[in-house]
């Protein structure tokens, strides 16, 4: 299989018989069949007759059947299983047109865009739900949500989709898949078929979580705390299953990207020269490889607790164990979201300033230490229920983690100091991201102090804090990155006036909304409440107004980017004068990224007098151990040239 996927399509034969229906449609059909098969089977063998057609246990198996059917239908069958077993297959990868984004693909750029597309979908859905929540919170009593559990389900879906289908997906599955191979001068990823399948677990996860209310309300929010989860209706099953699908997808991304960075770096791209963005990705990928299996195991246990039922996490078991297991993953998760953003800052700043990156090694050390420390601080989410003797150690590591986090600021500040930076749209988003994350981080110092935490925990202070860290880092940097790479992604560019205006509106709306969360929290507003004491209404009302503006601003940005993608002015090949390898090929890059294997001959972050162009694209023969040539005796680079390969659809 490994060989099959590294050899490019011979491709000269015309596309054989057309597939009978679009893969997505077939996937839906096969998913329905899979669901019916397994669900019916479970009902048939159910010893307690007289149940409805869909029960808790049956829906779990049915869901597994549906997920498998979905993946088989989307391409696992045609493109992976048949060739793997040596059967002829009709499948041929589409090379052009919008349809390839709605099919199984092996091109990491297509897969990256698929991830971005689904992540933005998740963001819009979860964002729409946030608008409903804010509408509800305009009054101290129930309005659009008729029962508190409806509201709590909305909070849970909002949080779960934002975290698992957007925050961990957009930057890593999306930007990571698209840019890591380009930035290390690779022609493709190592596990490209697996990766092409994995992305299709994202819509599975999103739809599962979104439609969880079909099985009943669940009231736990995104953390699924036990033993409450055990009391909830079966909707909570779709929370477990949806998250399983989403984390599985991200796990595949992590595996693929780490392997690609290890084995497919261009000649000359030593670890010491690795682009900052790639370092960010590698560190969080390692975090994902460590902690995602852990949370998946926990969710399987919780699921069994519910459907069997067992008593792992009830009063007769140990509720605190669930909390521990959740946050053991949960804290690294927040750094999985934030670290790529730190990396983006120091990726974009030197380019916009055309000035050498200051303290590059510190920026990298910061990322690596944040990654390592992030596994030692989980119980700071549990100060209100931890043993006294455990409070101080966790507080210690929590406070210490702000040191390596600060290194990202140190490098950025050192680089910008006495520079002449172009204050364009991407740069503006980055500066805003630095401001917002500063507030997120400093409010976190208050939370890290246990005596203060005992007051602020589970209030809107925390909600403000984590929205500042998540939106402040990942969303603002994400917009910065998209504006920065838009010329690469689409070959087109945007209008500075529009870009900046939208950025400023978003920034103001964001800060006006979430800064007041801190005050609400201090004033006694607790979380997970659709109804609250009336004295909190005036501020909540006003916060909601700003939140609606913020929602509109996000939407405006997304629409504007979409507009520029198709209709923007033509961009130059390397409009910002960057030195990283992704800019040393055409925009968008051809199928196998570079017409010839590029070689890296210098630092990617040095600018000014006497520095050279670090990427040369003439090093044909002399390929390093990381390249294809040493593994494939028939290697001929012409096979990989966009026209030489001759693959057309």
């Amino acid at each position, binding site marked *: 299989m490994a060989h099959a996927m590294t050899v490019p399509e011979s491709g000269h034969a015309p596309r054989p018989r057309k597939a009978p229906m679009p893969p997505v449609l077939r996937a839906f059909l096969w998913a329905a069949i899979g669901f019916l098969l397994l669900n019916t089977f479970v009902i048939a063998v159910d010893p307690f007759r007289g149940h409805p057609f869909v029960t808790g246990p049956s829906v779990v198996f049915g869901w597994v059947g549906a997920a498998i059917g979905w993946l088989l239908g989307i391409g696992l069958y045609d493109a992976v299983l048949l060739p793997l077993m040596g059967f002829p297959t009709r499948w041929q990868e589409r090379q052009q047109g919008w349809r390839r984004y709605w099919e199984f693909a092996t091109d990491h750029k297509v897969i990256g865009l698929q991830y971005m597309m689904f992540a933005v979908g998740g963001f819009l859905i979860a964002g729409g739900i946030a608008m409903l929540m804010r509408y509800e919170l305009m009054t101290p009593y129930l309005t659009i949500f008729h029962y*508190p*559990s409806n509201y*709590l389900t909305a909070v849970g879906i909002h949080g779960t989709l934002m975290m698992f289908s957007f925050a961990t997906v957009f930057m890593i599955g999306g930007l990571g898949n698209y840019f890591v191979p380009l930035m290390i001068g690779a022609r493709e990823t190592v596990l490209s078929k697996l990766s092409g399948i994995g992305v299709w677990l994202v819509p599975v996860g999103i739809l599962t979580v979104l439609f969880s209310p079909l099985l009943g309300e669940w*009231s736990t*929010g995104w953390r699924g*705390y036990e*033993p*409450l989860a055990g*009391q909830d209706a079966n909707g909570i099953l779709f929370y477990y299953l949806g998250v399983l699908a989403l984390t599985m997808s991200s796990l595949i991304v992590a595996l693929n990207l780490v392997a690609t960075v290890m084995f497919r770096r261009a000649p000359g791209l030593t670890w010491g020269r690795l682009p900052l963005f790639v370092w960010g990705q590698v560190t969080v990928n390692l975090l994902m490889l460590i902690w995602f299996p852990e949370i998946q195991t926990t969710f399987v246990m919780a699921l069994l607790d519910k459907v069997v039922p067992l008593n792992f996490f*009830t*009063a007769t078991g140990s*509720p605190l164990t669930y909390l521990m297991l959740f946050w053991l993953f949960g804290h690294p998760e927040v750094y999985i979201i934030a670290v790529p953003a730190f990396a983006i800052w120091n990726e974009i700043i030197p380019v916009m*300033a*055309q*000035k*050498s990156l200051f*303290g590059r090694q*510190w920026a990298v050390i910061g990322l690596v230490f944040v990654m390592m420390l992030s596994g030692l601080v989980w119980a700071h989410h549990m100060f*209100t*229920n931890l043993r*006294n003797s455990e*409070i*101080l150690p966790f*507080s*210690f590591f929590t406070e*210490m983690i702000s040191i390596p986090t*600060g290194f990202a*600021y*140190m490098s950025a500040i050192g680089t*910008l*100091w006495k*520079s*002449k*930076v*172009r*204050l364009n749209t991407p740069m503006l988003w980055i500066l805003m991201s*630095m*401001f917002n994350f*500063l507030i997120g981080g400093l409010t976190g*110092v*208050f939370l*890290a*102090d246990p*005596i*203060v935490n005992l*007051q602020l*925990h*589970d*209030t809107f202070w925390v909600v403000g804090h984590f929205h500042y860290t998540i939106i402040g880092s990942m969303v603002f940097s994400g917009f910065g990155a998209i504006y920065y790479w838009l010329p690469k992604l689409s070959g087109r560019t945007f209008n500075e006036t529009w870009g900046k205006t939208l950025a400023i509106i978003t920034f103001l709306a964001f800060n006006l909304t979430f800064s007041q969360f801190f005050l609400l929290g*201090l*004033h*006694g507003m607790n979380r*997970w*409440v*659709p109804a*609250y004491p009336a*004295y909190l209404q005036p501020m909540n009302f006003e916060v909601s107004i700003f939140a609606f503006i913020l929602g509109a601003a996000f939407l405006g940005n997304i629409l504007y980017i979409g507009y520029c993608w198709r209709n923007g002015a033509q961009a130059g090949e390397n409009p910002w004068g960057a030195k990283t390898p992704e800019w040393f090929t055409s925009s968008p890059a051809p199928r196998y990224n570079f017409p010839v294997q590029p070689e890296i001959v210098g630092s990617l972050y*040095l600018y*000014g*007098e006497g520095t050279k162009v670090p990427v040369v694209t003439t090093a044909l023969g002399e390929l390093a151990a990381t390249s294809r040539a040493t593994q494939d005796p028939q290697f001929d680079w012409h096979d990989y040239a966009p026209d030489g390969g001759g693959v057309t659809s």
Partner: protein
Amino acid sequence: MGENVVFAVLWVVFSVLGEIGDRVIIRHNPMYYIVSNQGQLALQAFNFLLVVLTPVFVFVVLFLVFTMVRFTTKRGEMPPANKRFAIDNKAFVLVWVGGSIALNLLFFLHPTTSAMEQMFALDQPAANTHDLVVDVTARQWQWIFSYPQYGLTQTLTPNGQNLLELPVNVPVKFVLRSYDPYHTYDQYADVIHSFWVPAFGIKEDVIPGETRYEYLTPTAITSYAVNPMVRVQCAEVCGPGHPWMESPLAVVSDQQFAQWVKAQKALANG
């Protein structure tokens, strides 16, 4: 050189202004309303962090603004390329790394450890004198208060709401449990709640199957009618009744408390 000086001066000026702002905030109590010794500890810690972090905040924000004003090219212009750039500056790195380590060690010693030591000391035998013990039972979705020293099993307001009443300046020991005394076949089928009185500045989770203690002393006569932060509020999501899992609270004088106990007894004995 010039920029360094300008920046340093501005940093000092804005930090001083920030500190003045902090004084104003502290005067008005950033935690709005705090009436317990425990809450006082939290408030002091909060204020300390606020004061020390202000120059840090000012440094970074000033830097970002400074960058936008002083370190930018004109629109559409490329940055000049004919320069050599520092990629290292030992002094700056030393001050930054050393400074952030020092700051965080400081925070760990004070207020983190110092305040926690004071809090932990409250359950040491010397302080834990059992002046008043209140058993707090959390069930979905209700707080039940009983006073074993006075033989009161469930204290209520005249219209039947659960009521927590405490004498001022008397150390209280709360015994926190989550179970359902009315659930006839499975008393332990309950979930995690969190016992929070915003005005006391502390919350402790109440966990099924475990017993937790919380010690504090209310420091002012007050009630829910005086300030709505004087209420018992569940702070951990516990199902659909969570938003309404709250109880009024009154802190009263010793005499009023004695009278109230009598009245509650009379009520209980019917």
